[in-house]
């Protein structure tokens, strides 16, 4: 798994672009990065999953933890960019598509109604 972090100029959202395989072996790195961002006050985070080809339950759990921490702050959230049917299928199979706000691109994720 590779991670890249980029500020956007859209309403203070920060984009974390993940690529490769997010599994129990690599997910801790994603957890650390998300936690660091949120604790440092960057509570609006988009995780761009367009280049992720595999995610397991540990990876999903890291995203759930991120959402919980981010939503603890006014206006905070961790949202996903994802159109890959493989990954969408796993989000659906776990019901997590009802937990996360998922957009087809960063603009769509940013402009969605909060949950």
């Amino acid at each position, binding site marked *: 798994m590779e991670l890249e972090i980029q500020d956007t100029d859209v309403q203070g959202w920060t984009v974390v672009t993940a690529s490769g395989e997010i599994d129990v072996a690599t997910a801790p790195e994603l957890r650390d990065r998300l936690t660091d961002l949120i604790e440092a006050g960057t509570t609006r985070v988009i995780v761009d999953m367009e280049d992720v080809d595999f995610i397991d339950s540990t990876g999903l759990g890291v995203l759930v933890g991120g959402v*919980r921490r981010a939503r603890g702050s006014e206006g905070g959230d961790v949202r996903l960019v994802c159109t890959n049917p493989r990954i969408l299928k796993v989000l659906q199979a776990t019901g997590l598509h009802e937990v996360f706000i998922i957009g087809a691109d960063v603009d769509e994720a940013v402009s969605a109604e909060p949950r």
Partner: protein
Amino acid sequence: MAEIVLEIPPRLDYLAVVRLVVATAAALDPPLPESRLDDLRLAVTEACSNAIKAHRPEAADQPVVISCHLDEDRFRVDIRDRGPGFDPDALRSLPAPTDPSRLQHESGLGIPLIKVLTDDVTFQPAGDGTIVSMTLKRPPAPPI
């Protein structure tokens, strides 16, 4: 019936190897369709990562054994660990996705995922550990 057996040390960085082997075995003739290979890769990752964790700390020097059984009409993979065992029926289910308390749970998705992704799964206590057996049916061969 052919059989492929893989033994790995109980370390999470071997999961990528396991996914590769199992998916490659399942893609042998007659192959599982691509979307079922995805299901298999994920189900195997979940079962195998539970197996590896179950080896900590007592069985850290014992292998986790993955065996693939290739039948005409089904693909079965067994994950055998030397962990303490557990009762799969005693696991608490997660709150509904719409329940705000759902966000309190970062784990516990592995076995529910295995159940959704496979056509059949059994958890058998095996003396000094557990065998998780997962079956995916192959699509019927097209008529000639």
